């Protein structure tokens, strides 16, 4: 290493600044490039006929009318993919015992959820394909459907996969300390609650979209992908369509929201690629909103019976719960549908010192759409569960819940440490975050105000959550279990002849501002203006190999790789400059596009001059010098499975006891995501996450009938938060950089979604509890709250 190291002490020009995202220029001109914006020559369009019922045998499929519709090119059934697509199974070896059945892109002989693709119609336009799909006659023989999570393991419940003895997919128990000994004590108080978390889904405003194009002359498959993990999909298409991996190119341009919805393997997308290979033509498939609701993964679906025991002086002594979670008929490939339950087991109680802990999670199959990882996997469940019980316990021992938190949060000066469940924790700041939160919201004043207003018949409550968030995952998340999911990411930075730099990175952009953050780091560390930085992400052919963006890893892992590559390139450039300027490289630096004298700051040569000499006039350089103006570095988290962040959040709400409607008056979030590279982007990320969390707590639910019909499949009857219902969200930061990287950045994308539901649930129960009732079923719809209020003492 020669060049001077980047110093965070003197604030960088870009790192830490609310820099505008270069990508917004394009998007504000209507020049984005989303999958549906792409038209390829000879492109065909796909539509799917989906199962109208939750569980049935396919007796026959009559496509004769559909085939004769003008413009229909091909109709494919499940059986047509046998031998063309290798079936896939959503299991991971580190989730011991997890089982699932092999899946094909379309149902072959049995349909197992309403919405499962059954027939694919390929036509000259989507409209014709849909017309034809509606003319296909499906002869189905109904089978009894297993739709009730709580009954899924009952003896008389239909078993969804005949090769298994029951609908159990996975089970795990964690048992630390001895909860029974605590229960036997007579100086303790135990509170017990059942938590019900309904299903909801991501509702990316741009629905899932794929174009597949196949060129037989080169055995080349090109996928235009609206998603988060291009390299993972490259592996999956290659393996299951039997094409060498290097012959599959997956490109993601603009992605209209993802939130974990777009990081999985969907049958309709695999079928699109398989059909393109079969027909040797480009095929486009766009899910419409109806299909999104029925086939985008759903999230949550937990029934939890739980209890917490505290001493009368406010120490949490024990936490125990059973979590039952329904995942649909298959475990999703390749991430599996057991990760959420596993996260709940690992994360619940993570902010606190809890000596005794016993938990069991059962993951069960159902005849409903598949459930899998969506933003803040497991976190909202874990946080709502522990902090909900904590609020109950505080009330039971007549202690302010903030005080109970203070007495039990893992102290800021005790890191590194491990959580009760064995998670390695470091660089966290729960106490500082809670203090800052209390100050920001003026808690004491607010409490008094609530009490005064109650006398006037207004029902207001405050709810808190102290949380941890899994970010920057290491190989221990998926890779260890055999999934084709990279946890390391890479960056290549090249100095171009004009003196600008080009960054290619394997993390991806879905609007978070990844590209901007990478450009900020590269510009600062290397020493050029951000206008001279171009960034490429989302392309398996031109970026280094990596995992993409999920589990809040873009800035923390992708940013660090860029940091390392920028340092390396700087060293290389200064080596060349040293020779050209007859100076020692360590006496030189790069600033504002120039090689400068490190002491006097005087400009010695522009980067364009240097690069042009190297590229065009190599004859001017000593012949034994072979300059490299390109550097690649990779980064992975090594000594810990995840880099945890922490946060403290609070909601102030008002409940109209006549209508059951909850109005959110204010929301505060204090987040410690390590070094903040761009506060403007982080703040709105957190707000966006909070708004999704509020949606889950109050409005959003995928409602099923008893026989497995999804009842709300339009945006008119699945409610997502709108501007007028949302509060001002005040964001505060504590910055404790992670020691696992130089940059010190942790993730921030999921905190809001992980913590907001707990705050809302707790705030509403803060109102209900004095009335003698509680409600721990989310979403807390007006109907549910009115039901609860019926037995309230008002």
């Amino acid at each position, binding site marked *: 290493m020669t060049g001077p190291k980047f110093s965070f002490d003197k604030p960088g020009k870009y790192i830490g600044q609310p820099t505008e995202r270069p990508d917004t220029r394009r998007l*504000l001109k209507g*020049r984005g490039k989303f999958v549906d914006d792409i038209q390829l020559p000879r492109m065909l369009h796909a539509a799917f006929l989906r199962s109208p019922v939750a569980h049935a045998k396919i007796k026959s499929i009559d496509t004769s009318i559909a085939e004769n519709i003008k413009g229909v090119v091909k109709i494919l059934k499940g059986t047509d993919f046998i031998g063309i697509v290798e079936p896939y199974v959503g299991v991971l070896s580190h989730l011991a015992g997890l089982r699932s059945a092999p899946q094909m892109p379309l149902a072959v002989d049995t349909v197992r959820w309403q919405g499962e693709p059954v027939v694919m119609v390929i036509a000259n336009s989507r409209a014709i394909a849909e017309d034809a799909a509606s003319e296909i006659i499906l002869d189905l023989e109904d089978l009894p459907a297993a739709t009730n999570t709580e009954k899924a393991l009952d003896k008389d419940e239909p078993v969804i996969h005949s090769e298994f003895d029951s609908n159990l997919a996975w089970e795990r128990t964690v048992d630390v300390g001895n909860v029974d000994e605590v229960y036997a004590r007579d100086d303790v108080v135990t509170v017990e609650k059942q938590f019900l978390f309904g299903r909801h889904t991501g509702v*990316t405003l741009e629905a899932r979209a794929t174009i597949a194009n196949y060129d037989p002359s080169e055995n080349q498959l090109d996928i235009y992908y609206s998603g988060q993990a291009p390299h993972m999909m490259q592996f999956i298409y290659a393996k299951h369509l039997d094409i060498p991996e290097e012959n599959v190119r997956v490109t993601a341009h603009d992605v209209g*929201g993802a939130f974990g919805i777009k990081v999985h393997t969907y049958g309709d997308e695999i079928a699109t690629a398989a059909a393109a290979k079969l027909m040797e033509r480009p095929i486009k498939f766009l899910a419409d909103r109806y299909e999104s609701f029925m086939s985008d993964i759903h999230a949550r679906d937990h029934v939890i019976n739980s209890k917490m025991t505290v001493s009368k002086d406010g120490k949490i002594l024990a936490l125990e719960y059973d979590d039952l979670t329904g995942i649909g008929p298959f475990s999703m490939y390749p991430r599996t549908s057991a990760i959420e339950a596993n996260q709940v087991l690992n994360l619940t109680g993570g902010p606190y010192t809890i000596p005794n802990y016993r938990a069991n999670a059962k993951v069960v199959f159902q005849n409903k759409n598949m459930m899998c990882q969506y933003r803040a996997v497991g976190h909202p469940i874990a946080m709502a569960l522990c902090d909900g019980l904590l609020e109950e316990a505080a009330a039971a021992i007549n202690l302010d819940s903030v005080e109970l938190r203070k007495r039990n949060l893992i102290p800021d000066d005790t890191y590194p440490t491990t959580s009760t469940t064995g998670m390695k924790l470091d660089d966290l700041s729960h106490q500082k975050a809670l203090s800052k939160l209390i100050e920001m919201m003026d808690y004491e004043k607010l409490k008094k105000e609530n009490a005064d207003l109650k006398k006037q018949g207004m029902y207001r409550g405050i709810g808190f959550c102290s949380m941890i968030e899994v970010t920057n995952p290491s190989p221990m998340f998926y890779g260890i279990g055999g999934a084709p999911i990279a946890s390391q990411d890479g960056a290549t930075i090249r100095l171009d002849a004009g003196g600008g730099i080009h960054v290619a990175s394997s993390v991806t952009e879905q*609007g978070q501002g990844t590209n901007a953050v990478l450009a900020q780091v590269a510009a600062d560390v290397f020493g050029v203006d951000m206008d001279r930085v171009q960034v490429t992400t989302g392309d398996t052919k031109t970026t280094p190999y990596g995992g993409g963006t999920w589990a809040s890893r873009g800035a923390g892992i992708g940013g660090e790789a860029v940091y390392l590559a920028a340092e390396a390139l700087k060293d290389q450039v200064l080596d060349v400059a040293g020779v050209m300027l007859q100076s020692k490289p360590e006496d030189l630096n790069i600033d504002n596009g120039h090689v400068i004298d490190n002491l006097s700051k005087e400009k010695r040569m522009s980067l364009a001059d240097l690069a042009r000499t190297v590229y065009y006039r190599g004859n001017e350089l000593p012949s034994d010098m072979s300059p490299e103006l390109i550097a690649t570095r990779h980064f992975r988290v090594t000594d810990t499975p995840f880099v945890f962040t922490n946060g403290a959040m609070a909601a102030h709400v008002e409940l109209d006891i006549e209508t059951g409607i909850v109005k959110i008056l204010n929301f505060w979030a204090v987040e410690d995501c390590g070094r903040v590279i761009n506060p403007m982007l982080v703040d709105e990320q957190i707000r966006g996450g909070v708004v999704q969390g509020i949606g889950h707590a109050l409005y959003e639910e995928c409602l099923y009938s008893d026989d497995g019909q999804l009842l709300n499949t339009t945006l008119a009857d699945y409610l997502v938060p*709108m501007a007028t219902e949302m509060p001002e969200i005040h964001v505060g930061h504590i910055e404790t950089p992670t020691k696992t990287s130089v940059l010190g950045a942790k993730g921030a994308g999921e905190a809001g979604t992980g913590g907001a539901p707990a705050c809302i649930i707790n705030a509403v129960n803060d109102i209900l509890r004095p009335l003698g009732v509680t409600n721990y079923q989310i979403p807390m719809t007006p109907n549910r709250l009115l039901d609860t209020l019926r037995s309230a003492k008002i």
Partner: protein
Amino acid sequence: MVDTKTITVTVNNEEYTSTVNVRKNLIDYLREDLGLTGSHVGCEHGVCGACTLDMNGQTVRSCLILAVQADGMEITTIEGLPSEGIAEELKKSFAKNNALQCGYCTPGMLSSALEYLNNGGRANKEEIRRHISGNYCRCTGYQAIVEAIYDVAENGVSK
């Protein structure tokens, strides 16, 4: 049954004459036939607001309008928003306030915001929130969007 019709539409000050399928909606016509892909489709049933654009001075949901209904109309899409005046100020304010993440809601959001500002909308966050409540954004927390519009309502067009 006649299933096509010839229409003449002015889009972003350019006149187009096209023969369209009568069942084709306006947004599909703009995106597929004219290649103006700046307007987006989020729901196709008039709820999400992503397809909102200006037709003869009024904001409309272009997924709920048939292309044939736009015969003789003047349409402005995000591609045709002027690079000056209030529209330009609004775009700058969106960038400055980080009022877009994925940008999928943005064309509709800009259109609704312009409607608000052009009709004398005040610098009042409640009113702005109410006005854009027909436009879903799934990425931001809406706050940045509200602030972006507020700033323009308050400061107008900078000289």
